C-alpha cells in the first residue's frame, strides 16, 4: 500500500470497490468490442457462422483471413504507399505548420493579421469536391502521390493550436535569445521548439493519423489503382458484394460478378490491419498529450 499524504483520508473499502467497478466497466466497454473484432478476425468461417455474427467465445481459430488479405500483393504494396505518404506528408505538414505558426505568433511579422484571417476562413468555408478537383487537376497532380499530401498539407485547426501554444511562450525567453544575437530561425529551432515538444508530438500525431487514414482524396485523385493507399484497398475488400446495399436489384445483379463476398473474419482482419499502427503509436505520444495540456496551467 502506498503511503498517503498526511492530509488525505484513507479511502473506504466501499469507495475503492465502487471506483474499481466503474473503471472495470469502462475498460470492458472499451476493450470488449476490440476483443470481438480481433477474435472474429482469427476465427474460421464455421465459427463465425455458428456465432451468427461477431464471435465472443473462442471457437476454431485460423489465420486464413490474414493470409487471404496479404496473399494478393496488392495489400502489401498499399501498406508501403500508406507508410510513405504518412512519413513524407507528416514531415511536410509539420514543418510548414511549425514555420507558419511561429511566424504568425510574432506580433510584428509581415501581414500576419490578414494571413491569419485567410487561414481562419478555411474553418468556415470548404471549397467542395469539384473546385478542389479542378485545382489539383490544374496543378497536374492527378495520379500523383502529391495529390494526397499537398491539398491538405496545412490544417487550420492544427496551425491555430500551435500558434496559440507559441504565443504562450514568454517573450522574455525569446528576447534574451535575440539579445544574444540569435536569428529568428535559431530562436525557433533552439528555444521555441525544444519547449514545444509536447504540442509538436501531438500535432504530428494528428497529421500522421490523417495521412494514414487518407481515403477520399485517394479515391478522387488517383486513377491508377496500383497507387492506392491502404485504406482504399481495404475498403474494397469490405465492399465485396455490398453493392446490394446501395439500393435496387439491378445493382445487385450487376455487381454480383464473380467475386465472393468476404467473410466477416476477413472484414475484421481488415479493421485490425487498419487500426494496429495507430494503436501502437498512440501510447508513445500519449504522454505528451497530458504534458501539452498541463504546460501553462500553473503559469497563469
Amino acid at each position: 500500500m502506498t503511503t498517503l499524504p498526511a492530509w488525505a483520508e484513507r479511502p473506504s473499502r466501499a469507495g475503492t470497490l465502487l471506483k474499481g467497478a466503474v473503471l472495470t466497466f469502462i475498460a470492458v466497454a472499451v476493450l470488449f468490442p476490440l476483443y470481438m473484432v480481433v477474435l472474429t478476425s482469427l476465427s474460421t468461417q464455421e465459427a463465425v457462422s455458428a456465432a451468427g455474427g461477431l464471435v465472443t467465445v473462442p471457437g476454431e481459430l485460423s489465420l486464413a483471413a490474414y493470409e487471404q488479405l496479404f496473399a494478393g500483393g496488392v495489400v502489401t504494396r498499399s501498406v508501403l504507399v500508406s507508410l510513405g505518404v504518412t512519413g513524407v506528408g507528416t514531415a511536410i505538414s509539420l514543418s510548414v505548420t511549425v514555420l507558419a505558426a511561429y511566424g504568425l505568433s510574432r506580433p510584428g511579422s509581415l501581414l500576419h493579421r490578414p494571413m491569419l484571417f485567410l487561414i481562419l476562413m478555411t474553418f468556415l468555408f470548404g471549397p467542395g469536391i469539384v473546385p478542389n478537383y479542378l485545382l489539383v487537376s490544374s496543378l497536374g497532380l492527378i495520379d500523383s502521390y502529391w495529390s494526397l499530401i499537398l491539398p491538405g498539407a496545412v490544417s487550420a485547426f492544427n496551425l491555430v493550436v500551435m500558434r496559440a501554444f507559441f504565443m504562450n511562450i514568454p517573450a522574455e525567453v525569446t528576447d534574451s535569445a535575440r539579445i544574444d544575437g540569435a536569428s529568428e530561425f535559431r530562436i525557433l529551432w533552439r528555444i521555441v521548439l525544444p519547449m514545444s515538444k509536447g504540442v509538436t508530438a501531438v500535432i504530428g500525431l494528428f497529421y500522421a493519423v490523417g495521412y494514414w487514414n487518407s481515403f477520399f482524396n485517394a479515391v478522387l485523385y488517383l486513377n491508377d489503382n496500383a497507387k492506392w493507399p491502404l485504406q482504399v484497398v481495404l475498403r474494397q475488400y469490405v465492399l465485396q458484394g455490398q453493392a446490394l446495399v446501395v439500393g435496387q436489384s439491378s445493382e445487385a445483379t450487376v455487381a454480383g460478378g464473380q467475386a465472393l463476398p468476404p467473410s466477416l473474419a476477413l472484414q475484421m482482419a481488415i479493421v485490425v490491419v487498419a487500426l494496429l499502427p495507430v494503436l501502437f503509436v498512440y501510447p508513445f505520444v500519449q504522454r505528451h498529450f497530458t504534458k501539452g495540456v498541463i504546460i501553462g496551467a500553473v503559469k497563469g
Partner: protein
Amino acid sequence: MNTHPEGATTSRRGFLGLVGLSAVAVAGGGLLGACSAPTGTRPGSGGATAAAADKLTSLTPTYTAFPGVKPDLPGTVSTLPGVPDVSGGFTRYPATPTAALTQKAGKGGTYKAMTPLWGPPPPGLADNSYFQAANADIGATVEFQITDGTVYVDKAIARLAAGDIPDIMVIPSWEIDKMADFNTAVDKAFEDLTPYLQGDKVKPYPLLANLPTAAWQWSVWNGKLMAVPFPTEPYPFALLYRKDLFDKNGWNTNPKTADELFELGKEITDAKAKRWAFGSIHEMMWPTFRIPQEWRYENGKLVHKYETPEFELMLAFMQKVFKEELVHPSVVSSKGANEKDLMAAGQILVYRDGLGGWKELLQQHRGKNPDFAMGAFPVFAHDGGTPLMYHGTAAGIFTFVKKGLPKEKVEEILSILNWCAAPFGTREYELSNFGVEGKHFKRGDNGIPELTDLGRKEVAYTYGFLGGRPLYVDWPYPDAVKLNVEWQNASFQYLEKGPFDGIRVQRPSKYSGLQVPTEDKFTDIMRGRRPVSDAKQIVSEWQRDGGNEARDFYMKVLQDNGRA
C-alpha cells in the same frame, strides 16, 4: 425554386409509340456546377409529333440475335414497354466455348476506362497477366481506372465537371440519378453514338446488336443514343428461403395468402433454437398486397402507393408479424444486421433479396455444405387473388465514350465494347470473366471454370461492365439455375403495368428526399410503436411536404405523353 411544375421541365422522347421521356427536376439545384445549364425546355421537347416519335424509334440499334449460343432453359420474351426479357438460363458450361468474333476487335490503340468495382482491387496492368491476356486477345490496350463502387458518383461528378474524361467511362444509372444536370453534362462530355449504332449501322458490332432493345432505349439522352447499356433482369427482388431446411422439415414452400405466410412464420419460428422465420420482408409485402410500385392511375387521378388502402393492410400485417416476433431480433434492432450471414446460419429462414443474393449465398456456402440450397416463393397475393410483381428498369449501367475522339478511335472503342459484350458460352466471355485456362482458372466438375490462386488475385470484373450482355442465369449450380428461371418465367405474367412504363422519369429531388423520413414513420407503425390508424396522418404529412407537388409533376408527365 420550390414550385413544381414550373421548376421542372418535361420533354418528349418517343419510342415505338410509347413515348420515352426525360423529366428533369431542376429544383434541387445544379450538382454539376461547372456544367450547369440554363433551365427550361431542352431540345426536342414540347409539341412532339408523330414524326419526332418515328425518328426516335429509329435511334436504337436493330436487334439481331447472336446465333452462337442458345440457353438450354428458355426465357420469356417481353412485350411490355421498357421491361427487359427473361433471357433464360444455362444448366451446363459449354465444353468448347465458341469464338464470337472472327477477327481482332482492336487496332492497337490504347484507352483508359473508368469502371466501378465492389471487391478487392487487382494488380495494375503492368503486373496483371489477366489484363495483359485479355488486351492481347482484344488487340488493343485497355487500361482500367478502377474506382470504389460506393463513392463512384463523387469521382464521376468531379471528373465530369473538370472535363477530365477518360476514353471510356462507365456510369451506373443509380449514380446518374444523383447528378442533377446530367442531361447537359452528357452532351458536353460524351460522344453521340447515334451515327455509329443507329438502326442497321450496328451491323459491324454483332454482339452489341444482340443486346435487348428495351435496354438500348434507356441509353438515349436528349434524343441521341449516348451509351452502351448493361441490361438488367426484370425483377427487383423476391422472397428467398432456405430450401434445404424447408425440404428437410416439410414446411410449406408455397404460401398462397398473407395468412398462410403468417401461419408458416409461426410454425417455423423457434426462438429457443435461435431460429426465426423472417429477415426483412416488408418490401416484398408491397407487391403481395398489390400496392403499386409507385403510382396508380385511376379515374383520371394519380394515387401514390402510400395513399392506397392496400398500404394500410400491409402495415397492419407487418405489425402482426413483428408483434408475434417472427422477425430475427438482430434485424429488428439494427439496420446493419447481415441477413445473408443469418440465412447461412439458419437463424433466418425467409428474407427479401435480389436474385443475385441467391447466387452469392450459394457461392459462399455450397462449397462447405453441398446440401445448402435456396429457393424463391412463387409470387402470391395477400388475399389469394391474382398476384402482382414489380419490375426494374431495363438497363442498370451505361458505358460512354469520350467526346471529340476521332471517328476511327470511336469505332475501335465500340469494337472493343463489342468484344466485351460477348455472351455466356463464348470464348471471349470466358477470357473476360475467368482469364486464361490453366493459368487463371481450371475446369472443375461439369467443366465449370474455377479460379486458381492467381485467378483470384488478378481477375476482377472489369471488361464485363464495358459491354453489357444478355442477362442469362449462368450460375454454376444447375439446380438453382432451373429454379431461378422457372420462377422468373412464372412471375413474368404478373408484372405490374404501371402508368409510366417505358417513360423515363427522373425523380424530383424533393420527392426522393421524402422517401426515407416517411418510410421511417411507417416503420414505427410496423414495429408497433404507433397504431396503424396513424398512417393517415403520415400520408397527409407526406402530401403536405411535397407529395402533392410530386403528384402534379407526375401528372404533367402523363399529360405530356398523352396518357392522361
